[in-house]
C-alpha cells in the first residue's frame, strides 16, 4: 500500500463534515463543542445525546437535562421501530426506570398553516389531509364546517349524511389500526396484519367514492364531491356484515391475553382532573371517566339525529384506553348502520362559486376525530384565501401528558403508553 500524504488525501465524507463544522464554528466564534463536561456539574447531561451543546435556556430544560447520580439520558431518536412516526423522546433513566421525559417534536413540520394562508378555500381542504393522515376525513370536516359558517351556507342533508358516513368509516379503521399498533409496539406481530386487512377493506370502499386510498380529497365547502350510488351501498352493507367478525378475530388475540393484560393494566394511569388540565380529549379522556364527546357536546352535522351514547371507562390505564377504542369502533359500526338506513335523497353539494369569498369574520369548527377534539379557527378577510387558518390537533396536546405518565415505569412500557395515546405525528407537527 502506497503511503498517502495526510495533507493531500481526500478526506472521508464523515471527516469533511467535522472539519467543515469546525471551520464554521470558528467563523461564528463558537469554539469546539463541549465534550463530556464534569459529572455532577450543571451541564452534565450535555454530551453527544443529540442535545444541543448550549446551556439550558428554560427552567424545564435545566430540570430535565441535569443528571443526578446514577441517571442517564437515552435518546429514542426520530427513527425508531415504533410506528408512530418521527418523534424524538429524550428519556432520563435511572437503571431501567424512566424518571423524566422530554419529547422533541417538529420532525414533520411542513408549515401547513402558512401554506393554507396562500391557498383558496377549496385548496385548503386538500392541504389539511396529510395532517392526521389516519383520519383524513375528520381533517377535512372541521375546516369545511368552519368555512361554511364563514360563508353562511349549509350543506344539503344528503351531503351531511354522506359526511357522517365517511367520517365514521374513517373512525372504524383508525381505531382498528390503533389496536394493531398497540400490539405491535409490545411485540405482537399478528394483530397489525389483521388491522391492515381491515383497513384495506375500508379504504377500498372509500377509494371507490373519493378516488384516493388515503388522503381523500372528498369534502368541499358546501357538501361533498361525489355521491354514493346503490352499488356502493350494497358493498358497504356486505362489508358491514363481515367486519364485526374480523374485528372480533383481531380482538380475541389480545383482549383476554394474559401477557397483554399484564403489560397494560395499571400502566400509565391518567386520572380525570389531570386529563382535563392537560387538554387531553377523545378516547383518552373518555377512558379516564370524563364523558366529553364533541358529537354530543356541540353537535355538528347530523349527529343530533343519530342515537348513540357516550361510552366511558373507569380506570384510565392503557387497557382502558384500548377497551375504549374497541367500544367506540363498535359504536361507529352502529352509527353507520343508522346512517345507511336514514340516508335521504338529494343533492350532495350546495351551490357555491368557484372561488369562495366569504364575508370577513371568524369561525370555529370542531369535530370529534379518533384522537380527540379536532378544531379549526378560521379568520376571513373577504378575499379568496383565509387570513388565518389555525388547526388544533388533538395528538399534539395529548403528547403533553407523556412526561406525566411515563416516569416510574420501565422503559419498555414507554412504547405501550405511547401507543395507547395513539398520536399521529402528521397532526402533531402539522
Amino acid at each position, binding site marked *: 500500500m502506497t503511503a498517502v500524504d495526510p495533507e493531500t488525501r481526500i478526506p472521508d465524507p464523515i471527516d469533511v463534515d467535522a472539519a467543515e463544522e469546525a471551520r464554521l464554528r470558528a467563523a461564528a466564534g463558537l469554539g469546539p463543542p463541549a465534550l463530556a463536561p464534569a459529572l455532577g456539574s450543571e451541564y452534565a447531561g450535555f454530551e453527544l445525546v443529540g442535545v444541543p451543546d448550549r446551556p439550558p435556556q428554560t427552567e424545564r430544560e435545566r430540570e430535565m437535562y441535569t443528571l443526578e447520580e446514577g441517571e442517564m439520558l437515552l435518546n429514542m431518536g426520530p427513527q425508531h421501530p415504533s410506528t408512530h412516526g418521527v418523534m424524538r423522546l429524550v428519556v432520563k433513566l435511572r437503571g431501567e426506570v424512566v424518571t423524566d421525559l422530554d419529547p422533541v417534536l417538529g420532525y414533520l413540520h411542513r408549515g*401547513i398553516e402558512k401554506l393554507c394562508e396562500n391557498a383558496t378555500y377549496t385548496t385548503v381542504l386538500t392541504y389539511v389531509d396529510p395532517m392526521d393522515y389516519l383520519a383524513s376525513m375528520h381533517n377535512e370536516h372541521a375546516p369545511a364546517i368552519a368555512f361554511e359558517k364563514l360563508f353562511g351556507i349549509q350543506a344539503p342533508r344528503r351531503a351531511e349524511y354522506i359526511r357522517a358516513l365517511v367520517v365514521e368509516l374513517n373512525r372504524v379503521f383508525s381505531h382498528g389500526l390503533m389496536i394493531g399498533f398497540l400490539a405491535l409496539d409490545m411485540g405482537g406481530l399478528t394483530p397489525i396484519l389483521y388491522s391492515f*386487512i381491515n383497513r384495506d377493506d375500508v379504504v377500498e370502499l372509500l377509494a371507490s367514492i373519493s378516488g384516493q386510498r388515503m388522503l381523500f380529497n372528498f369534502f368541499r365547502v358546501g357538501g361533498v364531491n361525489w355521491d354514493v350510488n346503490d352499488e356502493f351501498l350494497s358493498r358497504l352493507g356486505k362489508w358491514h356484515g363481515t367486519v364485526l367478525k374480523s374485528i372480533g378475530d383481531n380482538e380475541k388475540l389480545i383482549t383476554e391475553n394474559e401477557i397483554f393484560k399484564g403489560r397494560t393494566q395499571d400502566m400509565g394511569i391518567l386520572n380525570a382532573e389531570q386529563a382535563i388540565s392537560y387538554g387531553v380529549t377523545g378516547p383518552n379522556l373518555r377512558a379516564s371517566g370524563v364523558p366529553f364527546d364533541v358529537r354530543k357536546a356541540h353537535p355538528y352535522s347530523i349527529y343530533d339525529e343519530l342515537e348513540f351514547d357516550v361510552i366511558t371507562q373507569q380506570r384510565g390505564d392503557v387497557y382502558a384506553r384500548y377497551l375504549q377504542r374497541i367500544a367506540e369502533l363498535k359504536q361507529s359500526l352502529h352509527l353507520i348502520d343508522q346512517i345507511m338506513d336514514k340516508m335521504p335523497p338529494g343533492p350532495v353539494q350546495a351551490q357555491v362559486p368557484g372561488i369562495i369569498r366569504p364575508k370577513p369574520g371568524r369561525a370555529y369548527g370542531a369535530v370529534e376525530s379518533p384522537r380527540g377534539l379536532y378544531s379549526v379557527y378560521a379568520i376571513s378577510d373577504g378575499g379568496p384565501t383565509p387570513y388565518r387558518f389555525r388547526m388544533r390537533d388533538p395528538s399534539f396536546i395529548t403528547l403533553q401528558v407523556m412526561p406525566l405518565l411515563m416516569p416510574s415505569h420501565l422503559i419498555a412500557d414507554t412504547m405501550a403508553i405511547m401507543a395507547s395515546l395513539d398520536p399521529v*405525528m402528521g397532526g402533531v407537527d402539522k
Partner: protein
Amino acid sequence: MALTNEPGDAAVRPNDQTPSSELVTSPARIEIPDSAPADDELLAPFGMEEHPTGGFHGLLEVIPTKADLVIDLIRANSLWPLLSGLSCCAIEMMSTATSKNDIDRFGMFPFRASPRQADVLIVAGTLTTKMAGPLVRLWEQMPEPKWCVAMGTCTTSGGRFKRSYSVVQGVDRVMPVDVYVPGCPPRPEGLIYGLLKLRELVMARRGQWRTYVDRGPQRVAWEGDVR
C-alpha cells in the same frame, strides 16, 4: 450445463459420423473411458495439468463469472428495508408490507430497525429540514451496497408542500436516489412496481451509491446547523 456427461448422451460422445466441427473440445465434454490415462497426461494438451492443490481447477474459472449473477440474485431477492416511515406514505408502505399486498414474497419482509442491517432506505413521507440531518445520518450508517427509494411526491420533489419553508424539496437534494415512486401516497401496487424496478437495478448493478455527485450544501438546515 454440460458439466457432467451422462452415459447415454449421444451429443457428447463423438462417433465416426460426427463432423469434426462439432467435436467440442472443452474438458467437460470429453468422455473418459475406464482405461484412461492419468489426469495429467490427459490434460497436458490443454495446458491444464493437475493442480498442486487438487481439483479440476479448470472448472473454477467458469464459476466466478456466474457468482456475480448469484450474488445479484441474492441481493435482489432479499432487500431488507429500513423502517423509516416518516409520514402518510409510511402507512401505505406498511399496507404494502401486510397481508393484502405482500412484499414478503419479494423477500422484503424484515423491516430492520437498525440501519446497519438494512439494504434499502425507502424514504416514505415528507422530509423536513429538521429531519434531514437524522435521515442522512441513517443513510451514512447503512453499509454498502445500499439503495434508496423515494416514495411519494414529497420525497420526489417536495410534492404538495412545494412552497413550504421547512420541507426539503425532494430527498435527492440530500442523498442519492435510485427509484422514484410518484403518488400521494402511491398505491401499494405502485410501490411494488417501484420495488420491482429496484430489483432490476440491483440485478443490473446500476445503483447510484457509487456514482452520486455531491452538489454541495443545498440550503438544507440541519438541526443545530450553524449556518
